[in-house]
């Protein structure tokens, strides 16, 4: 995952690029491979949930997400976790600049 997290005037803006093929049912059928895509993404700072999305197969390949949240979070770490249809999860974190 590529993560950029920037703090400005009380708001942290995070840009995430996850590396995932995001194969839809149609694409998977064409390529004769199992369907798989990211279904759920959460972002946390410490224990606090700051972002959450349930996603479908219609997100682009290597999905890009941009979101923002309030709070004095400069210097803290934001951790992002995705779960895909196969049950695989991946977590990466980045310091908020």
């Amino acid at each position: 995952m590529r993560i950029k997290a920037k703090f400005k005037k009380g708001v942290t803006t995070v840009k995430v690029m996850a590396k995932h093929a995001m194969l839809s049912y149609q694409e998977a059928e064409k390529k004769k491979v199992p369907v798989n895509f990211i279904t759920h993404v959460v972002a946390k700072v410490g224990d606090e949930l700051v972002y959450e999305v349930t996603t479908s197969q219609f997100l682009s390949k290597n999905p890009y997400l941009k979101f923002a949240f309030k709070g004095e979070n400069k210097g803290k770490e934001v951790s992002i976790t995705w779960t895909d249809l196969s049950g695989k999860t991946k977590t990466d974190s980045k310091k908020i600049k």
Partner: protein
Amino acid sequence: MERRKFLGLGAGLFAATIIPASLVAANFRETKPEAWKVMNTKEENMDGVNAGIKAIFGTDKVEEGKVKLKAPDIAENGAVIPITASTAKASKIAIFQSANPESVVAVFDIPANGVPDYSIRIKMQKTGTVVAVAEIDGKLYKASKVVKVTIGGCGG
């Protein structure tokens, strides 16, 4: 499917017992599994989108306004269409479209400190309407936009 439902239920109960309510992650794939299978019917027909809204929010009574939806007029590449949905405050935002087999694209559950200004990139296999729906103080508001797709991006 039965087994999956059962496991999901178990995990949900477990999570609810040990984590304070504010921190419970709302995975709409577990709580609303039917919503993700709502099919679009015909082109230029919003039945699928409306059924998707009903499946996620429990009602399809939606007013125009309060939500801003940014999407391109023409997408040269249907595989990467940048979408931005924003509003002053909301508890949920969901994105739908009428071009792909199923209508629901993504559902954002907005935490207490979340700023509802979210961007994603989606794929559409043909020209269709993108709809953003936000739940604000228990009411639904929407914004929609037709995106013309010149090259399909969903295996098409």
